[in-house]
C-alpha cells in the first residue's frame, strides 16, 4: 500500500514537473509578451496541482490535504487574475506584437 502511494506521488510529481518545465521553456522561447503569458499562466497552474496531489498522496494526512486544497484554490483564482491584469497592462503600454500575428482584436481605445 505504501509502495502504491509512493508510486502515485512520484507519478504526480513528474507530471507537475513536466507542466512547470513546459511553462519555463515557453517563457523563454515564445516570441512576444502575450504568447509568454499564455505559456506561463496555464501550465504553472496545472503543474502546481500535480505537485500538491503528489504531496497529499505522500503525506496522507488531513492536514496536508486541507492545506493543499487551500493553496490550489488560491492559485486557481489568483493566477488567471494576475495574468489578465498583466495582459491588460501590456496592451495599454503597447508591448510589441509578434510579426506573425494575423489579427489584433484589441480596441484602439484600450491601447
Amino acid at each position, binding site marked *: 500500500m505504501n*509502495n502504491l502511494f509512493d508510486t502515485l506521488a512520484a507519478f504526480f510529481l513528474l507530471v507537475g514537473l513536466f507542466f512547470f518545465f513546459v511553462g519555463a521553456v515557453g517563457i523563454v522561447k515564445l516570441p512576444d509578451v502575450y504568447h509568454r503569458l499564455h505559456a506561463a499562466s496555464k501550465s504553472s497552474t496545472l503543474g502546481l496541482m500535480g505537485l500538491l496531489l503528489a504531496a497529499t498522496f505522500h503525506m496522507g494526512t488531513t492536514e496536508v490535504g486541507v492545506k493543499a486544497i487551500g493553496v490550489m484554490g488560491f492559485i486557481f483564482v489568483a493566477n488567471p487574475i494576475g495574468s489578465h491584469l498583466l495582459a491588460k497592462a501590456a496592451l495599454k503600454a503597447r508591448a510589441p506584437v509578434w510579426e506573425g500575428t494575423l489579427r489584433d482584436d484589441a480596441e484602439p481605445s484600450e491601447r
Partner: protein
Amino acid sequence: MTAELLGTVLNAPLPALLAASDSVANLAGVHAGDPPPHANAPTGPILAVAVYIALAGMCLGMLLCMWRLVRGPTLSDRVLAADLLALHVVGIVIALTIYLNDMVFFPAALAVGILGFVSTVGFAQYIHATAGNPEHPHADAPDPANVRRGGIPPLNPGRPPSTPLHPADAGSA
C-alpha cells in the same frame, strides 16, 4: 539490492542537512541525540529518484525564468518571469515537503504564492498607470522597430546616429 544501493547513493547529502539542522535544534533546546522527524523518512527509491528529478528540473526552470527576467524586452516580460519564479519557489517548497517528509515548510508555499500574486498585481497596475507617461519611462514604450523583429529588440539597442539626443544638438551636429 540495487534499489538499496540507489537509495544509499541518493540519500548521500542528507547527513550534511541533518548535521545543519542538529546545530539549530541544539539552540532550540531539542536533545541532540534525538533523530529529527525526517531522519527515517519512508521514501522509497522510486519516489527518491522522482523528487531529485523534480528538484533539479525546477531549478533548471528557475534558471530559464531568470534568463527572461534579465533579458525580457518589456517590463511586462520581467514581471511575468518574476511571477513564474515565485510559482517555481512554491513548487520547490512542495517537493521539499515530500523530500523531508515534514510539513514545516508547507505554509511557506501559500505565503510565497500570495506574495507572488500581490507583486504581479502591483506591477501590472504600475505598468497600466504609467503607460505612455514620459516621466516614468520603462521598456514597454512603443518602438515600431521592435515589431518588425518579432518583438525581440536587439540586446543593446543603440540610438540611430541620425537622430539627435536633444533638440539643442540638432544644429551643432
